């Protein structure tokens, strides 16, 4: 497919997005519409938007590359995405979150907890964490999309990044959450269709069935590169050696970090407050799970099986065909799929990036404009959304700058990192606001501070992957990590920080409970 045709496909896609953004803009009359869609969002659109926001380009390109390199163990993440991210999130958390949001008329995640605990400090703290921490995740998502475009179309990475960031910015700033939701729904449909085709075409190209392909993949286990065998890789249809560095990365960072972290993602939580009743959430369970197993399940499965394709065509496994694991999926699409599908798949990656990015920008903007500076632009009009729009703009600029500083291979880890921070910092306070009447303001504040500081400390001084890269520990103490005894430096920060923040929540709440009522 030539560049002109590709360009036309992309331009049509962009026009449709612009049109959906315009519809969102026309339907946005006040701050409630801009932030929550007036709490009357269609459940199918909400569930599709939830799924599309959940699954970013990093989930496809980054984790797909992880599957290609380390195998099918990553399917545990698919399971946790479905079970924690949809079943538990919608049925257990979503129901109470919606009711609580309605009770307090909360419009953002920080506002929900701030009003519940009757604490402006809690609201500002959560908003600040979102506004400071989320640009890193947004930058990782940007990087995922940009890497794909660079790989597939050999165009200037910076230009492509700039154009699609500007487009997302345009429909988020003008259309608000309605613009985000409508575009998300379209993008979810594109992603769903692409992943189904990817799965179908892979088996067609390889001319083998599900079980046969799995068996072949098992048989090539001896071809695992030595550098991966050393860290515990046992083959693409086997879990890494228990307790090995790869096992810790897979289980603690990728599976637990993302699997549990998704429960406390502000941009996902806020979607529960957008629907009118519990009935809408019940419908979302079905739509969300079907969407996730097809999108996430397919890319992880095909990612691992891509080793068979590379072995057949290149004579080497995927991680030998291309060293940067973030580039494996783009290369695989380029080589294995029909030419026309490259363009469609580019839309899929753009969709995945844009849907996640738009939600992130909206959430960061809401944190800035509605939580941190609620009076910004409200002097003349109480329903003004100017503060949120300024927040969106700032968050886009910061994310864009961070994106340029990220190194190769960072996509999957960056996603896990942010989700881990969210879980450690927000989850205990959020969970207790929904289910524990004895939870107090002091307990929530202690938990938030403990989670955030413990995560930061573990990342800077304990977890080698981040501490080594940042270098602060080395600067202060002359070594990469404080405890260089295996496996401590391989354990993800979430495993230190989440129990500590939970403990802080429980202990401080129990101590302070009798003194006050929420």
């Amino acid at each position, binding site marked *: 497919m030539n560049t002109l045709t590709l360009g036309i496909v992309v331009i049509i896609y962009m026009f449709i997005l612009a049109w959906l953004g315009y519809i969102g803009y026309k339907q946005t009359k006040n701050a409630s519409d801009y932030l929550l869609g007036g709490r009357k969002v269609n459940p199918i659109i909400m569930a599709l938007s939830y799924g599309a926001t959940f699954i970013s380009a990093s989930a496809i390109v980054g984790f797909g590359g992880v599957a290609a390199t380390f195998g*099918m163990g990553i399917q545990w993440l698919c*399971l946790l995405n479905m079970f924690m991210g949809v*079943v538990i999130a919608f049925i257990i958390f979503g129901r109470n979150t919606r009711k609580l949001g309605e009770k307090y008329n909360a419009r953002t995640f920080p506002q929900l907890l701030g009003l519940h605990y009757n604490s402006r400090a809690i609201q500002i703290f959560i908003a600040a964490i979102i506004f400071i921490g989320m640009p890193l995740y947004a930058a990782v998502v940007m990087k995922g999309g940009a890497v794909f475009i660079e790989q597939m179309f050999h165009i200037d990475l910076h230009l492509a990044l700039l154009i699609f960031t500007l487009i997302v910015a345009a429909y988020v700033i003008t259309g608000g959450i309605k613009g985000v939701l409508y575009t998300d729904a379209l993008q979810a449909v594109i992603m769903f269709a692409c992943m189904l085709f990817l799965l179908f075409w892979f088996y067609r190209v390889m001319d083998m069935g599900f079980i046969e392909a799995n068996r072949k993949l098992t048989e090539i286990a001896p071809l695992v590169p030595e550098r991966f065998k050393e860290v515990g890789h046992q083959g693409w249809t086997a879990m890494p050696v228990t307790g090995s560095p790869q096992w810790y990365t897979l289980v603690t960072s990728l599976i637990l970090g993302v699997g549990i972290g998704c429960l406390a993602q502000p941009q996902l939580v806020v979607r529960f407050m957008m629907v009118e009743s519990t*009935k809408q959430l*019940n419908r979302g369970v079905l739509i*969300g799970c079907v969407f996730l197993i097809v999108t996430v399940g397919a890319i992880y499965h095909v990612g691992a099986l891509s080793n068979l394709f590379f072995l057949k065509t290149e004579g080497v496994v995927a991680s030998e065909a291309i060293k940067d694991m973030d580039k494996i999926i783009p290369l695989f699409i380029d080589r294995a799929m029909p030419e026309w599908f490259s363009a469609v798949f580019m839309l899929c990656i753009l969709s995945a990036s844009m849907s996640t990015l738009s939600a992130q920008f909206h959430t960061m903007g809401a944190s800035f404009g509605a939580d941190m500076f609620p009076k910004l632009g409200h002097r003349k009009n109480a329903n003004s959304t100017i503060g949120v729009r300024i927040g969106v703009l700032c968050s886009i600029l910061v994310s864009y700058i961070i994106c340029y500083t990220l190194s190769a291979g960072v996509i999957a880890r960056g996603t896990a990192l942010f989700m881990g921070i969210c879980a450690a910092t927000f989850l205990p306070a959020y969970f207790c606001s929904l289910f524990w009447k004895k939870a107090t303001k002091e307990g929530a504040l202690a938990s938030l501070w403990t989670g955030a500081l413990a995560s930061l400390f573990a990342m800077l001084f304990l977890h080698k992957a981040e501490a080594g890269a940042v270098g602060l520990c080395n600067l202060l103490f002359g070594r990469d990590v404080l405890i260089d005894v295996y496996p401590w430096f391989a354990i993800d920060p979430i495993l230190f920080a989440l129990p500590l923040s939970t403990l802080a929540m429980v202990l401080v709440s129990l101590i302070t409970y009798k003194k006050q009522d929420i």
Partner: protein
Amino acid sequence: MFGISDPGIWLAYLLALVCLFYSIWFGVTHWNKDDEDSTNPQQPEK
């Protein structure tokens, strides 16, 4: 199972399928089930 010998892997596939079927069952049986009458009062901004 599924052509995969390591239970650490095929269990993930199996549980994902169980989760999928549960969600389908839940979604279908609760499609019109609500906790309460629809309440969506337009409250003043806080």
